[in-house]
């Protein structure tokens, strides 16, 4: 899936860039974007290390499990394949709150910790689980109470009243969240997106045959 979109982006870029006469810019962007990707990753390390350390303290002192238990009524439906008081739920909740409150630099390490916990429950380490997709869908809805950077942009452009966008933005993200959760729950049931993909069929088949023989 991601492979095809990746292929599409690169090939369209090369064709359209060639037709537009912008092929030099396209080639130059390879160097620039690759460098940007490494810069982002490296610059994340420091703040990531700090928050991963803090999260370890929170985990070992039982805070994460406590949060997981607290949210059981909501999360047991959303993340049906995760045990309700699993630390993953606590990390997901913290990531959501951090994003909603606009503390992005803490939110990313929390989200990564959540993925790490979800990966421990994953039988196939290369393929995303339902819980992972649900978590990502909630995350990409981008719920936030104060879109600080955008308010700053409006203010910089001379807006007298830039905070008027807070209400509409919150409402829109809420609609995005509802749509994302609905879609992710429908799509996870479709055979096309089923987790056990074709490459495992032979394996399961041979296992089944072996069982039958016995």
């Amino acid at each position, binding site marked *: *899936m*991601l492979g095809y979109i990746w292929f599409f982006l*690169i090939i369209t*870029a*090369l064709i*359209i*860039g060639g037709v*537009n006469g912008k092929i030099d810019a396209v080639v130059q*962007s390879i160097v*620039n*974007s690759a460098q*940007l*990707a490494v810069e*982002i*990753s*490296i610059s*994340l*390390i420091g703040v990531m290390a700090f928050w991963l*350390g*803090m999260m*370890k*303290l*929170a985990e070992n*002192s*039982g805070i994460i499990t406590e949060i997981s238990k607290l949210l059981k009524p909501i999360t047991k439906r959303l993340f049906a394949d995760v045990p309700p008081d699993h630390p993953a739920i606590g990390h997901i909740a913290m990531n959501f709150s951090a994003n909603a409150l*606009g*503390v992005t630099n803490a939110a990313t390490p929390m989200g*990564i910790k959540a993925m790490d916990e979800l990966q421990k429950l994953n039988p196939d380490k*290369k393929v*995303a689980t339902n819980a992972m*997709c649900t*978590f*990502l*869908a909630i*995350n*990409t809805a*981008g719920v936030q109470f104060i879109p*600080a950077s*955008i308010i700053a942009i*409006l203010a*910089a*452009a*001379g*807006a007298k009243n830039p*905070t*008027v*966008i*807070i209400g*509409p*933005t919150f*409402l*829109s993200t809420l609609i*995005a969240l*509802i*749509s*994302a959760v609905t*879609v992710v729950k429908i*799509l*996870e049931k*479709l055979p096309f997106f089923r987790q056990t993909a074709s490459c495992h069929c032979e394996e399961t088949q041979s296992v089944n045959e072996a069982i039958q023989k016995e």
Partner: protein
Amino acid sequence: MLHLITQTFDIFKHSFAGTLNLFSLWILPVFIVCILFTALYKKIPLYDTFIDGAKEGFSVGVKIIPYLVGILVAIGMFRASGAIELLAHALSPVLKLIGMPADILPLAIIRPLSGSGALGITTELAKQYGGDSYMARLAAVMTGSSETTFYVIAIYFGSVGISRIRHALIAGLVADIAGMLAALFICGLVFK
């Protein structure tokens, strides 16, 4: 009537925004204090546990590099080729029907691909039309109500080494489209 509602809404929003601002400023300090005292109370080796967790920071940072390079290079090439302008041009007759201004279209296309790109376009629109204009507000709400889905997917799935992401991208893009359409509708109702 509608004016009265928006006015009361405005007053409420100002005190509300102030409280929220204060809250988001203090949430991290309070959170750190809570963690440290709970850990102290539970007699957990403070510094050792912190170091143990922080150790992973480096490996995670390095682990996401190939995923981020893959995604960001493809997006960078796509943007540099002028494909976004072309796509905006092709889509504009359809989107005019639902009341989406032509100038806002590049923003809608770039939003899931690049966060800095979306902020750049929002800045341009705000400068061009004025900070209190309908266009600036619409751009702001659209940017705020969606996420840089490709980046989020690259980082989170990259950090655990997952390459087969199943329906995550589609759900993420649906969230973006829903958020932006909601923004268009709500802004049309409130700001126009």
